[in-house]
């Protein structure tokens, strides 16, 4: 009993026990299944269907008068407005400046934001000095400062860039220094243990390591940039999607208002998709 004995049975060939079990099977019952669930998948067509149904309801409601013309424009009219806009060539006349403003403003805001964020992530004094400042600036509504922006940056493109840059700056800073804080410290210690220079560590370990966090911050920053487009184009903009929307709003022209809003919404979805693609390319190393 105190000795172990070696009872080995090659299982590959032996079907014996299996048959035996099957024979005894009347007293057994299969084990109940209780797993699964909690892993929602999203079949693409459902999303499309939801949009189609919503639009159909709006169309039907406005046609039958069940939804008053004051409340919602007729989707088909919005589409017609959009076509008109496209055919008159005005679409690109509005889209062009807006995209330029988005690009320049967001570029400034994001690049300054990332730089400041990295500095905050690396240096104690910068962190101590700027974090409270950023926290105080964050909740300031940019539209409240519109009159000042005119004085500070003029009514040309400058103030529009500045407004968008300002709006994207704060969320980028917050996302970036959070990302730098989250870079795995063992990787940094590894760099140090191999005698890498400070600058090598920042360039080769800290920055790539912070990239996922920075990119996901970019999603938010760019959404905010699009939202701020309207505010920016309150400042003496002739053309631009924001200006178009504002003008439509001031004339209470719901068709054009919605056409403009749809453009912004599409712009937002496109931006987010593009960031998704960039993430998949640049962050292919993530598990």
């Amino acid at each position: 009993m105190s000795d172990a004995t070696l009872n080995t049975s090659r299982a590959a060939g032996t079907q014996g026990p299996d048959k035996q079990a099957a024979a005894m099977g009347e007293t057994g019952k299969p084990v109940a299944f209780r797993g699964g669930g909690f892993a929602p998948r999203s079949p693409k067509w459902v999303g499309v269907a939801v949009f189609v149904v919503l639009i159909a309801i709006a169309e039907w409601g406005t046609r039958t008068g069940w939804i008053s013309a004051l409340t919602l424009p007729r989707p088909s009219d919005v589409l017609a407005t959009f076509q008109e806009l496209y055919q008159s060539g005005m679409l690109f006349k509005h889209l062009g400046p807006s995209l330029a403003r988005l690009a320049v403003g967001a570029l400034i805001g994001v690049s300054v934001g990332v730089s400041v964020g990295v500095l905050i992530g690396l240096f104690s004094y910068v962190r101590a000095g700027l974090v409270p400042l950023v926290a105080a600036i964050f909740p300031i509504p940019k539209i409240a400062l519109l009159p000042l922006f005119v004085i500070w940056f003029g009514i040309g493109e400058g103030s529009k860039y500045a407004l968008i840059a300002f709006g994207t700056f704060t969320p980028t800073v917050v996302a970036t220094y959070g990302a730098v804080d989250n870079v795995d410290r063992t990787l940094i210690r590894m760099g140090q243990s191999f005698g890498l220079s400070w600058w090598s560590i920042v360039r080769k370990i800290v920055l790539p390591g912070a990239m996922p966090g920075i990119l996901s911050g970019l999603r938010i920053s760019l959404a905010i940039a699009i939202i701020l487009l309207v505010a920016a184009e309150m400042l003496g903009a002739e053309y631009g999607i924001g200006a178009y929307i504002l003008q439509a709003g001031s004339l209470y022209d719901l068709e054009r208002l919605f056409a403009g809003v749809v453009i912004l919404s599409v712009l937002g979805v496109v931006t987010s998709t593009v960031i998704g693609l960039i993430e998949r390319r640049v962050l292919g190393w993530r598990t």
Partner: protein
Amino acid sequence: QGTKIKVGALRFTSHSGSFVAKDRGYFADAGLDVELEFFQAAQPMAVAIASGDIDYAVTAISGGLISLAQKGAIKVIGGALIEEEGIDGQQILASDAAFQAGVTDPSKLGGKSYGVTQTGSSFHYVGSRIAQAEGIEMSFKPLQKVGAVVGAIKSGQIDAWNIVPHIAKPLAGSGAVHIIGAVQDYLPGYQTTTVFTSAKNAADQRDKTEAFLAGFSKGVADYNSTMIDQSGGDAGIDEMVKLIHQYVYADRPFEKAKPSIVNGTMRINEGAKLNMASVKDQLEWFQSGGYVDASVTIDDLVDTSYVEIVG
């Protein structure tokens, strides 16, 4: 090549003076190379003058304008749109609900709500002067944007409002609101909009400023004679509307835009004359309401040396 200047404008028919002067070369004749800068609202335009981004503009007198004048940044140098008897001016509107409930006349507005864009805006001034004249009390609802006020009055959430005719008439046509009076009945000779510039331009750039006013006045004269005195007949009006259509309602087809433009016709002061009495009244109102500093004087606001002063 003339002196380069920038002129601020809104895409409203009330800015036609500048449009005509630019399009027909009157500014060029006066030796100016004018670039029009368009704005979505009047207030940023005033700030833009103060910051030196634009040189001249036309807009209503507001608290912000007076504030900037007090800071020594801008000066009113002439008059533009004016309420004149016999010509449709700003209309007083009542919502359908209020109208059905018996508000058929401004005198019945007691206790009703009156839409304004902002506290201390020109709408606020007009509304409170109406209330004063009728001896009634109204509540003023600041809704920031003209579009928001339109929405509010259409859906009956405010009872009354005043607005330029080209917006008032189509609204009334749709049956959602009713015209119950005209502003000129209460404020005859109301200097609705004024021409203004930076204090620096007014003081140091006399030639340039005079040249601008000269060009502007010619444009105004053309506009008045064609649209109000109808000197060119229908053909003239058509041609003028076409000109204005380049700037106003540009994205609508001409046929749709024309009625709106024609409806918007109001007299613009010949020679940018300024009705000083009206301006003084406005300043007084802003001060009594505490919207601007009590120490602002009419001289802070107006430079009377450029145009004919009436009233």
